[in-house]
């Protein structure tokens, strides 16, 4: 199945010394890249390492300032994605870039429809589209409108479009980020079929498991430069991560050590008893101490976010009591929670967190300004000091307060969101999926930050789908299943396996922290 990697055929794509600068940024510096027929090649790197830029240089969206692109032995310079497609380079982007208002068949074949008497031959087109879909084992009606299908199917239609032409190179830019496990398996099956047919596949993913499962070879980029090219079998995860983030993994381990050494014994900050909301989460008890990191573990839909929203007053509880600082608190809405020193960083950072079209500065001061009331504007000096402090503390890039949040990478947006709440100096910080969709380096920084905050006395409620992360940084872990709190574990002695067992429904005894 795997092609012979020791004696590879000549590469189908060879990029030599590619450089590209955007205003103020050197996006790519002297990058070499090779792609062989019949291989799945993973392009690895953090957010902002230049993966997307390199791909866009290959697919004709950007033109390099320097270097050459050789395709099948001939030097090429594409001026549009159309030209690249013509030459056999097809791309499937992270967001489905198709037209939901057209039919599946049109989305697959638009621009190269079969024609008869000068007009489009729709029956022939549906037939062709059906054949292409069948080739990758997708059975949907080509005449149906694309918008009717779920995103995962649309993604497969995008792949069908990519291979409907004589495609030598297939570029998949984070195709799995919106797919569930079964859909990913389906995608990989299709990728293997195409690879065995001799298609060269360039694959980008943030999920290391997937990269190791599917790829034969990988190229690692960092800060727009080439770090190395390896056979996947030759490089272990540790080395890969070290190459990607360009620093020792010591940072990650230090976090773990810190969490293990700490025994938070601050005063009880928040105490919820029998707090619940019908249809969202069953009544639960929860105690959070100052300086403590409490992790919430559970599957999607287990009630993680719902619990957090109750504590923040985003939803009203219909049973139970909440005591903050020994005084009962009735949450009438987020405003009263904020007044009590509770901050909630939403999982949907674009929809519920940041204002994408405002600058970093404006986003940072939003929450603080809201707390002060609109009648007392913050003086510019104070703003600048705050912004400078947090830009530096959180290592937000670019460190330009006037940059629009929309233009930042996911990891940096998350940091801005965090900073926005930190500005208000909350005593309880609720973080819902703060590390989702961001790269390893930024993840480590955010985890580090959580640990630091806790050490300074802030209580943190940490929600993440990644159990390893929860287990690593939490002092105490609350496990949820089916909208119910089922266990509370001591974070320093609990392993991932134990939590998985509980979530999966195994009958582990309930352990309560001493």
């Amino acid at each position, binding site marked *: 199945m795997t092609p012979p990697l020791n004696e590879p055929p000549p590469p189908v794509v060879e990029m030599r010394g590619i450089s590209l600068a955007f205003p103020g940024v050197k996006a790519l510096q002297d990058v070499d890249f090779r792609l062989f027929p019949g291989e799945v090649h993973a392009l690895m790197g953090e957010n902002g390492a230049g993966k997307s830029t390199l791909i866009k240089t290959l697919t004709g969206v950007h033109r390099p300032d320097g270097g050459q692109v050789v395709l099948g032995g001939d030097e090429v310079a594409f001026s*549009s*994605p*159309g030209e690249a497609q013509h030459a056999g380079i097809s791309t499937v982007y992270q967001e489905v870039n*198709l037209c939901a*208002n057209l039919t599946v068949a*049109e989305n697959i074949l*638009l621009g190269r429809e079969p024609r008869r008497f000068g007009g489009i031959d729709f029956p022939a087109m549906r037939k062709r589209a059906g054949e292409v879909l069948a080739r990758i084992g997708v059975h949907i009606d080509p*005449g149906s409108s694309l918008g009717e299908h779920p995103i995962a199917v649309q993604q497969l239609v995008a792949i069908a479009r990519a291979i409907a032409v004589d495609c030598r190179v297939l570029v998949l830019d984070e195709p799995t980020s919106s797919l569930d496990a079964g859909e990913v398996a389906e995608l990989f099956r299709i990728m293997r079929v195409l690879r065995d047919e001799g298609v060269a596949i360039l694959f980008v993913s943030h999920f290391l498991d997937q990269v190791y499962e599917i790829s034969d070879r990988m190229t690692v980029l960092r800060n727009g430069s080439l770090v190395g090219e390896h056979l996947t079998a030759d490089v272990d995860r540790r080395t890969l991560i070290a190459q990607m983030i360009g620093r020792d993994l010591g940072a990650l381990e230090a976090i773990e050590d810190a969490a293990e050494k700490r025994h938070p014994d601050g005063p009880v900050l928040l105490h919820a008893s029998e707090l619940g909301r019908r249809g969202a989460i069953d009544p639960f008890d929860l105690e959070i101490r100052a300086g403590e990191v409490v992790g919430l573990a559970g599957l999607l839909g287990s009630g993680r976010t719902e619990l957090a929203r109750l504590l923040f007053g985003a939803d009203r509880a219909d049973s139970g009591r909440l005591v903050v600082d020994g005084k009962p608190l009735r949450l009438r809405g987020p405003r009263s929670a904020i007044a009590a020193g509770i901050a909630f960083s939403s999982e949907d950072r674009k929809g519920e967190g940041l204002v994408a079209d405002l600058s970093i500065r404006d986003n940072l001061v939003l929450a603080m300004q809201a707390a002060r009331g609109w009648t007392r504007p913050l003086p510019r000096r104070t703003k600048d000091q705050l912004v400078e402090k947090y830009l530096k503390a959180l290592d937000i890039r670019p460190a330009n307060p006037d940059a629009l949040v929309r233009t930042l990478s996911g990891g940096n947006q998350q940091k801005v969101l965090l900073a926005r709440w930190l500005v208000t100096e909350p005593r309880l910080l609720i973080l819902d999926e703060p590390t989702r969709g961001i790269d390893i380096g930024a993840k480590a920084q955010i985890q580090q930050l959580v640990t630091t905050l806790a050490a300074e006395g802030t209580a943190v409620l940490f929600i993440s789908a990644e159990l390893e992360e929860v287990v690593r940084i939490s002092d105490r872990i609350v496990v949820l299943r089916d909208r119910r709190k089922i266990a509370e574990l001591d974070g320093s002695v609990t392993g991932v396996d134990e939590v998985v067992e509980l979530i999966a429904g195994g009958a582990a005894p309930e352990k309560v922290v001493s």
Partner: protein
Amino acid sequence: MTTLAPRVPSRFLPVLATVALFVLAFGVGSARYDGFASGQVIANLFIDNAFLIVLAAGMTFVILSGGIDLSVGSVVALSTMVTASGLQAGWPVPLVVVAVLLIGSTLGLLMGLVIHKFDIQPFIVTLAGMFLARGLCFVISVESVSIKDRTFRDVATAAIELPGGVTITYNVVIALLVVAAAMYVLHRTRFGRTVYAVGGSESSALLMGLPTTRVKVGVYVISGLCSSLAGLLFSLYMLSGYGLHAVGMELDAIAAVVIGGTLLAGGVGYVLGGLAGVLVLGTIQTLISFQGTLSSWWTKIVIGVLLLVFIAVQRTMVRR
């Protein structure tokens, strides 16, 4: 199309709603007024609105691509002016026709290029085009110029007899030919499908390797061409050229297209919808003239209400 309807009824729902509205309005008229339910009343709908049908067809292209063309009314006026003064100066009719169509298409091309090259909203560019064309009318003459050319008058007054004693003008034939051509281009050609793709998602269309530039500029050329053709039809209808002809007609065209179910955001709609929209507007006008006691401004009020209703319906459909 009918085979698709049961499977994806939602796609055709707005057009069907407009057709139903037309039938309803016509039914109401037939029930209330003697002589309303005659073939000639229907024929008159087409005769009196032939130019608007052509405008709506061109406008459908632009709106489908996600743009808007505010210049069409002024281009109609400019076309009547060029026609009338050209004929007055003794130009042969074919030369006048070619000149008018060239002027309209060129204006469309220029606006399309500006929109594309400088990445300016179509609203602003075509607003500028609207002022430009309107102003050019008065450069030619500030007076109304009547058309006395024999050939032109003969064509204008020629009646084509249909079975049942109903007569239509050449204008109607031309308008229906334009609708047929527009349908063919939109549904059967690569250009037409790309118009839909660009309206659905321009960035997707670009990344799919489609010729978005050609389409984005092309729709304004088509709209310009349709406007100048509509201007010729309007000259035949009014037998005069005047700088104050067709004031606000661009809004009637947009209203007809939107009432016909075409999404202002682009990507969804049909030429037939625009035709149905024009017929609805025409029927309302006819109703009010049959009533006799109502001011013609009631037409505007009804159109306003209809527009609001249709836009609200579209909103909910998009949200769904």
